[in-house]
Each structure stands twice: as C-alpha cells, then as structure tokens.
C-alpha cells in the first residue's frame, strides 16, 4: 500500500501550491512596485498608484497566501476535510482575474471598472467563505484556534463589504460621513480583523509543531482572542464616529499583540528543536515587528502622532514587517512540505528520499531574510522622512529580497519535476526511510 497522494483530509498539494505561487508572484510585483513608486510614497498615501500597490500586497500577496495556507492547514488545525477541491480551484481563477482587474483599474483610475473588479473579488471571497463554511458544518470544538479563525473570516467578510462599498461609492456616491475615516476603517479591518486573527490562529497550532514547544498558556490565549474580539470592533467604530472607543480599542489590540509576542518568544526560548531554520527566524523577526506596530498604532489612535507619513510608516511595519515577514516564514515551511509530499512521500520507505531541509535553499532564504528585514526597517524610516530617493533605495532592497525569496521557492518547486527521474543519492541506502541529518 502506498501513502495517499494528498495529506490526510486535505486537498491535492497542488491546490494550495497554486495559491502560494500566485501570492509569491504578487509579492515580487509589489516589492518592485515600492522601488518604482518612490516619489509617490513620498507624498500622500491616497494616490491611485499607491492604492494599486497596497491592494497588490493585501489581496494578491496576503489574502491569496492565507487562503492557500488555509486549504492546507484547516484539515490540520481544525481537523476537518475541505468541502470542495473544485470550488477551491475555481475560486483561485476568479480571485486572480479580480485582483489583476483591480490593480489595472486603480492604476488607470477608472472607477466603474474598479467597482466591477471589486464585485468579482467579492464573489471569489464569498466562494472561499462558502467552501470553508461547508467544511466546518456541524463543527462544535470551538477551541482558541477555531474562534480566531471564525473571527478572521468575519473580518474578511466585513473588509470585503467595506471595500466593495468604497469602490461603488466612487461611481454612485452613497456612503454617509467623511471618506477617510471609512477608508481607515477598511484598512484596519483588513490588517487587524482579517489577517491578524488568522496568523494568531495558525501560529497557535503550527508554531508548537515547528518549534517543538508548548502551546499558548491560558492567559496568552485569553488576551490574544479577547484583545482582538473587543479591540477591532472598537477601533472600527472609533474611526467611524464613536471616537471614545478608538484609543481603548487600539490598547486592546496592542494587548493582544503583546500576548502573542510574549508567547512566541517564550516558546522559542523553551523549544526542543535544536536549531532555527530561516522560516522560523522570519516568523520570530516578524513577531518583533509587533512592538513598533503597536506603539505607532496606539500613538496614532491617541493623536500623539499624526499625518500621512506616520500612517504610512505604521502600514509598513504592520503590513511589511509583522504580516509579510510572517507569511514569508510560513511559506518557507509550507511550500517545501507540499512539494516534498507530492514528489517524495509515495517513494519514502522504498528508496532514499530527502528531508525538507535538503530540498530547501538556505543560502537564498538567508539572503532573503537579510534583505527583506533590512528593507522593511529602511522603508519604514524613509517613508517617515519622505525622501523619494531613499524610499526608492529601500524599495530596491525589498525587491532584491523578494527575488531571493522567490528564487528559494522556485528551487523547491523544481523538485516537482526533477524528482520523477533517476533517484539521486540522498545519502542512505535501503532500507533507510529518510536521510539522517
């Protein structure tokens, strides 16, 4: 009997891989875009090209990566099989067209086209929610992770509604109140209501597996969950017209971030895993970015800091530092696993096969680590200063880092094809199952 061609309860590894490859492509495009848009990034953030750039990151990179990872991880973290593989495939095609359409129409500044692309995007996201919802039919084990996933998908639905409303409002103005508070609420819903709970949720289940360490303790879990559950609605309502809630909400979210960081670093210190690979270094470094993100977020909410430069720096450390570096780190763990599973698991036990570490490319991963972390710090500092030349330089560093990351992934992906030929010598002869490391 051979092992199944797909991980237990999951889809074919090619489905999440397709999402993750599309996401990595968007990441490279966005990083190149930062270098290209230096002068625009030195100005006000509400600029068509910057909206195109931001949505390339939030939709093309972050959302596609989380959805792809969800199709791989939901069977693991929630122990439920995915309802429909076919729907997952269709959903990716719809999202790819919609995101490309949105980028193009932001770039061209054509609002009716943008509204149509946003509508198509909403269809793609709705299909994902349907697929996940049906996968979780009858689900009763509302653990910490499951509640955070529920919170995250609620945040995704609201972010999408806000986004579609903002796009439609450009064609048929109907939204009450000022424009920028609604825009800021949309941004915070995406960062804090959709992406952050999903990262906390997945981290709670997979970091202990990766680090070989203990799961979050009760107070860590409580603060992470309720800090977000109470804080994000308060931030959004505070932005939309109940200003008294804004600071309290920001402090609650900062508390959740602090609890997550405290757990992650405690776990890293007490881990049983002998060494840290680049993926784990990425996620720990990303976690450290929660500190400046929380400080800037609370300061902006309390009006201790203000203006588009600080707001842009907040977005850089949150979206570029905390969120993007976490996703890069997780992808450096997930992609080799999926490729290995597809290429080598049917042969393991019958002939020598590599470990995941052996199909990875640590040099490229290390280079990506230096360039991406350095690039994010540099970009945050330079958008604060508003110097276009330095912003462009930071963008160039980021772009090189993104290319190194893409190269590392591409080399892993080559095993999907090269593994079919003659068996390379991975070091141990039969009957060894895997090479000793």
């Amino acid at each position, binding site marked *: 009997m051979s092992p199944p061609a797909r991980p237990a*309860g999951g889809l074919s590894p090619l489905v999440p891989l397709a999402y993750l490859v599309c996401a990595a492509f968007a990441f490279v495009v966005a990083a190149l875009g930062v270098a290209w848009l230096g002068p625009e990034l030195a100005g006000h953030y509400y600029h068509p090209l910057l909206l195109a750039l931001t949505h390339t990151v939030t939709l093309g990179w972050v959302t596609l990566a989380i959805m792809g990872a969800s199709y791989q991880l939901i069977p*693991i973290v929630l*122990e439920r099989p995915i309802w429909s593989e076919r729907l997952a495939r269709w959903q990716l095609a719809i999202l790819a067209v919609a995101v490309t359409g949105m980028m193009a129409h932001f770039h061209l500044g054509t609002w009716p086209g943008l509204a149509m692309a946003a509508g198509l995007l909403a269809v793609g996201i709705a299909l994902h929610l349907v697929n996940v919802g049906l996968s979780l039919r009858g689900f009763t084990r509302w653990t910490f992770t499951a509640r955070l996933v529920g919170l995250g998908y609620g945040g995704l639905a609201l972010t999408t509604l806000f986004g579609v409303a903002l796009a439609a409002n450009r064609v048929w103005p109907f939204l009450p109140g000022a424009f920028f508070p609604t825009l800021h609420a949309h941004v915070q819903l995406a960062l804090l209501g959709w992406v952050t709970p999903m990262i906390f949720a997945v981290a709670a289940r997979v970091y202990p597996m990766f680090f070989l360490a203990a799961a979050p303790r009760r107070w860590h879990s409580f603060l992470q969950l309720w800090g977000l559950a109470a804080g994000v609605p308060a931030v959004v309502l505070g932005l939309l017209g109940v200003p008294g809630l804004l600071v309290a909400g920001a402090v609650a979210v900062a508390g959740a971030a602090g609890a997550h960081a405290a757990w992650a670093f405690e776990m890293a210190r007490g881990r049983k*895993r002998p060494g840290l690979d680049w993926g784990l270094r990425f996620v720990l470094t990303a976690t450290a970015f929660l500190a400046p993100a929380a400080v800037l977020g609370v300061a902006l909410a309390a009006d201790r800091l203000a203006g588009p430069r600080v707001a842009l720096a907040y977005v850089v450390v949150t979206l570029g530092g905390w969120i993007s570096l976490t996703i890069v780190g997780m992808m450096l763990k997930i992609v080799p696993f999926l490729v290995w*599973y597809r290429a080598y698991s049917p042969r*393991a*036990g019958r002939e020598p*096969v590599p470990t995941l570490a052996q199909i990875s490319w640590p040099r490229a991963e290390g280079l990506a680590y230096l360039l991406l972390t350095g690039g994010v710090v540099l970009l945050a500092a330079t958008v604060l200063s508003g110097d276009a030349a330095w912003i462009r330089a930071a963008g160039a560093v980021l772009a090189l880092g993104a290319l190194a990351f893409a190269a590392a992934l591409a080399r892993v992906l080559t095993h999907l094809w090269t593994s079919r030929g003659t068996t390379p010598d991975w070091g141990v002869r039969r009957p060894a199952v*895997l090479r000793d490391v």
Partner: protein
Amino acid sequence: MSLSPDLITQALRRVYDPELGMSVVDLGLIYGVEIDAGRVSISMTLTAQGCPLRAALVEWVRLAVGELPGVEDVRVIVTFEPPWTPDRIVLTPSR
C-alpha cells in the same frame, strides 16, 4: 537474530519526520511495541491530531519494521491517549 523490541526500535530510528529531520523514536511518537511470534504490534502517536503525515508515517513505520527478518505482519495503532507533548522528545546524537 531473534525479534526483540530493541531491534524494532532500531528499525524505527530510520523513520523520520521529514520536516523536523528527527526519527519517530527520538520524537517520542512510539508508545509501545509488542511481539507475538512474527506478528508485531506498534502503538504510536503523532505530534498533532490533524498531522498531514498521518497515513504516510503509519505506512513508513509498517515498511521499516516489515523488512526485518522474521516479521510476518505489522499492525500500527495510532492513539492520542496520552496526547503527545514536546517533553517526550529524547534527543540522541546524530549517527
């Protein structure tokens, strides 16, 4: 050489978690080995209930033990009682 739990444990040291690069023995995933003539029963766990490698690890354990001389049948039982914790890891020097 007659079958013994030690011999089977040695065989299981060749079954690795591909992500961690550690054997199922070092990870503390093997809860028990029983031998009844040529029939071997192995009780093991996984690092998480939804472990994507569940079917594969079971198969690799079966293959590694099944190759030992004198083994006629291998039965692998996956249990989560008691659940696995990192405290079960016993690191041995790389061979």
